[in-house]
Structure formats: C-alpha cells, structure tokens
C-alpha cells in the first residue's frame, strides 16, 4: 500500500532528526577520528574518496572499504547504524542499477547469461558507491557540522557560501518541522478518504504555504541580522591547531594512499 503524504513526511522527519541527533552524539564520543583535526580529516577523506573513484582494481577498492570500516569501529561508531544508514540504502539504490550489467555487458561468459566483465562492472559500481558513501558519512558522524563548515572556509570555499550552508542547515530542521506540523493539522481536520487529485491539490497548496513561510522567515531573519549589526561581511574564527598526532595521521593516510596507488600498478 502506498504511504500517505503525512506518513511519508513524518517518517522522513523522524529519520532525519534521529540521524542528525546521532551525528551530534557520535561526534562528541572519544573515538579515533573524533580526535583528528577536521582539516586533516576532510583532506584525508577526500584523498580516500578520490583513490576509490580512480581505482581500476577491485582489490584496491576493497582495501579502502576495509580501512573505512576499521576506522568506523575505532571511532566507536555503531556498525549496525552504518548498515542502516549507508550500506543498505546504497545497496538498494545501486544494486538494481548494477544488476542488469551482469547480463548486458558483453564479454567472457562465466555462467550463462552472466559475463565476467558484467560481474566486474556491477562490482565496481556497487563497491565504489558503498566505499565512498561510507567515507563521507564517517566524516559527517565524527565531526560537528560547525567544524565541517569552518574547515570548508579554511580550505578556501567562499565565506558567503559557507554562511549560506550554515543557515540552510539550521532552517532545514525548522521548515521540516513546520511541514510536518502542517500535515498533522490537515490530517486532524480530514475525516474522509481523499482522492489522489485532492491529495495532489493539498500537497501543492502545502508547498505553496511553506514557500510563503520561508520567504517571510527569511525577511525576519534578515531584519534580525541587520539589527545585530550585519552589514554584509561574514567572519569565521579559525582556531584550528595541528598537533603531532594530526601529522602522524596525515603520514599514515598518505602511506596508505601511496600503497593503493602502488597496488593499482
């Protein structure tokens, strides 16, 4: 049975909040990645993601995935949650896309109609997606969002864009809560089963109201910013300090990436 709009919104809101709250909690745990300087962590994650994307060898991708899982465990992240948030959704998304490649890719037939090249192509697609998503979620789950934003600024992303990202993240929760409240209010006033056409009309109006509220809120936020002295300049305090452990981490990671590149040869 198709879930109603309200059920869908509610499920999304609950999942969204659970994920965000879990990310905040796990970022404050005393684990391995939580101790690493965010700049080193993000640069390291980018290096690993690029290595996984550039790899032409399934073994190299498996090594990177293995390292990611080991890092997750060392950072005291619950693997069942990683499976729920990363591995299962990625498999559900990429699996059906990769499956036809088993039969459609021409090459040496392993067992009719599966070809070796098809199997490898499907494995590349799914393993790469699982590995890279695991790495990016590792960063998100071990670094507070504010530190990620600061790091983006330190890495040269324009300040205005960092400011927009920061505000967007904050208001996403508010708007999602507003949307959920609106759908609750509608549900509490609805006593009969709505037709699909009526549901579409209500959804259109609900999105319109949400848009209108967003604009109103942006105007109020703007006035509040001006009242606090905002004149279009945006500053981010950079209090990052690299410690010996960060350099060590950078060295170990560089060694790993170099080993992967050697494996590629």
């Amino acid at each position, binding site marked *: 049975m198709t879930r109603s709009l309200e059920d869908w919104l509610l499920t999304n809101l609950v999942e969204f909040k659970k994920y965000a709250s879990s990310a905040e909690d796990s970022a404050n745990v005393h684990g391995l990645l939580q101790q690493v300087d965010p700049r080193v962590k993000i640069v390291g994650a980018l290096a690993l993601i690029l290595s996984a994307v550039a790899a032409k060898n399934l073994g190299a991708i498996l090594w990177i995935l293995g390292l990611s899982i080991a890092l997750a465990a060392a950072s005291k992240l619950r693997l069942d949650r990683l499976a729920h948030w990363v591995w299962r959704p990625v498999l559900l998304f990429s699996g059906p896309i990769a499956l036809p*490649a088993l039969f459609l890719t021409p090459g040496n037939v392993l067992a009719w109609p599966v070809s070796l090249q098809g199997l490898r192509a499907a494995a590349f697609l799914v393993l790469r997606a699982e590995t890279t998503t695991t790495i990016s979620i590792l960063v998100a789950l071990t670094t507070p969002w504010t530190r990620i934003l600061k790091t983006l600024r330190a890495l040269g992303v324009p300040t205005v864009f960092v400011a927009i990202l920061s505000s967007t993240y904050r208001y996403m929760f508010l708007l999602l809560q507003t949307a959920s409240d609106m759908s609750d209010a509608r549900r509490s006033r609805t006593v009969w089963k709505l037709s699909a056409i009526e549901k579409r009309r209500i959804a259109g109006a609900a999105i*319109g109201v949400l*848009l209108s509220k967003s604009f109103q809120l942006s105007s109020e936020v703007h006035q509040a910013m001006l009242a606090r002295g905002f004149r279009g300049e945006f500053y981010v305090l950079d209090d990052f300090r690299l410690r010996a452990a960060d350099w060590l981490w950078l060295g170990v990671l560089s060694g790993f990436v170099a080993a992967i590149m050697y494996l590629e040869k």
Partner: protein
Amino acid sequence: MHIPDGYLSPSTCAALYAAAAPFWMIALRKMKRVLHTRAIPLLSLAAAFSFVIMMFNLPLPGATTGHAVGVGIATIVLGPWGSMLAISTALVIQAVFFGDGGITTIGANCFNMAIVGSLVAYTVYRIIAGSAALDSRRRVVAAAMAGYAAINVSAFFAALEFGIQPALYRDTTGAPLYAPYPLHIAIPAMMIGHLTIAGLAELIVSAGVVSYLQRAEPELLRMTAGGAAKDIAEERTSGSTRPLWIALSLLMIATPLGILAAGTAWGEWSATDFANPSVRRQIAAASSNSTPPVNAPSGISALSQIWIAPMPAYASPFLKSQSLGYILSAMMGAGLILLATLLLARIFGK
C-alpha cells in the same frame, strides 16, 4: 537523479566541476549585487525549502508516488541564478551530511539539476507564459511545463554523462569501470522514469504551487514575470496613488475657502499691516489686546524688501478673481513641489 560517487570517472567529475564553477560564481555575484545583505537569509531559506520539498512524496497517476526536486518552482520564484544557488546548496548538504549523492559528483549533480534545470525551467516558463497576467491560467501551464522540461533535460544530461563512461573507461579485462551502460541503454533507462514518474512529480508541484501563489501571494511570482510584472507594478503604483491625486485635486479646488477665514494668521504680518488701522485691530485682538507697535519693526521692514513674491497673498496680478487666483496658486505650488521631488529622486537615484 543524485549521482553517487563511482558512477562517473574522476575526469568527468572534474570537467563538470569546471563547467559548474563559472555559473556558481556569476550567480553568487549577481545575487549579492541584487540582494546585498538579504542574499544569505533568502538563499538559505530557499535552499532549506528545496531540501524539504524533496521529502514531499506525491501520489501520482498509476498508483505510484514520486518526489520533486523543486527546480521549477525555485526558478519561477527566485529567478534562474537564485535557483542555481539554492538547489546547489541543498545538493551539497545532502551529499556532505546525508551521503545522498557523491562528493566527487557534486559538480555533476549541481550542473545537471541546479544549473541546466534552472536555465531550462526559466526559458520554458518565459516562452510559454509570455506576458500573460500574473493570475492567468497560462502561467500555471507554463510552470507545469517548465518543471517537467527542467527535470527531463537534467535527466538527459545525467544519461549522457553515464552513457559515455563505458566507451571511455574500462579495466584490463574490458569491464566498464564506472556507469556500465552505453548511451543506447542509459538514455532510455533514465528517460522512461523521468518522463513518467519524476517528471510528473515536478509538473504537479510547479503547477500546484504557482496556482496557489496566484491566489495567495502573487508578489512571489513577479521575479520571472517579465513585462507582466512591470505592467502590474505600474498599475499598482498608479492605483495606490490614485486616491492621493484625487484628494490633491479636491484640495486645490477648495483653496478659495481660505478667503472666508476671518482675520490674519498670527505672526504672518507684512510691514504694511502695521500702518493699516483695521489690520492693527486684528493683530491686537489676536494678541490678547496688546497694542502692536506704531511702525513696523525695523527688521521686518528691512527683510521684507529682499524678496518680492511674484504672486503675493496668492493673488495673481493678471487675474481679477481672487478665487481663481487661489486655485492657480495651489496648482502652481503643488506642481513646483512635484517637480522638485522628481528632480531630487532623479539626483539621488529614487
């Protein structure tokens, strides 16, 4: 349509980052110039809105459901440049924080959905809507078509990017390294889903929201309304000031009523009034029976010679009728004030 990491080769990703970068820079510059301090809160809320509407799962014909990206409605309300930034921001947060869409493919996803989508939506909307009134049905149809076309052209670009991968990148055994399907499979596979489910979701959201805004908040549709918005703005300007013009005309016609007022305004005496016995009585009556000086104060006498008004006491020398003189003076006075206001507005940029 959020392409994950691993579907596109590093060089394709780099090319699409490079293709998206100038659009981001121009959009950011344009929005900062137009919105100044409003840019951050407005774009943030618009991005948060885009993020949230991706969670609205709509019932579609055929007992299925789908969600919109919101590129159609974001373009209609914010314009193509604002939409590019808002949708890109939502996509970046989805990729970085939620792992929805890859990190290496942020450039590709933003290029397909935010940049191409916004430009297509804007072009289609402007062509179909033309100069139709803001509340016309044609704008609802235009919004529907804009959303539908935007999402489908975006999907077509994604299909092209997928489709060229197996031709360019294979391992030593000949297995495709990235998206494994060639163009003749990738294009139909992507387009069937988007021409039906995803396209319909975008169509319904764009049309539904524009229809709602026409009734509730037509102001939000002005950004991309072109000539129609200008007409409405002018109509609104003339409409809102019309009562003021009528009131001003009535006051001008009523100015001769001033003749009926008895006495002189206290303190608005001329030098000759002090020598006129009847005016002296009025001055004394209006000043608690204090007798005014016999001669006009020397300061008043001296300063009153500096400027001789062309129409003293609102009486035109060439008109015998005092009432007509009053009306003419009112017209001239009001006209001079309006002229001065227009000049100041022109000098100081409104």
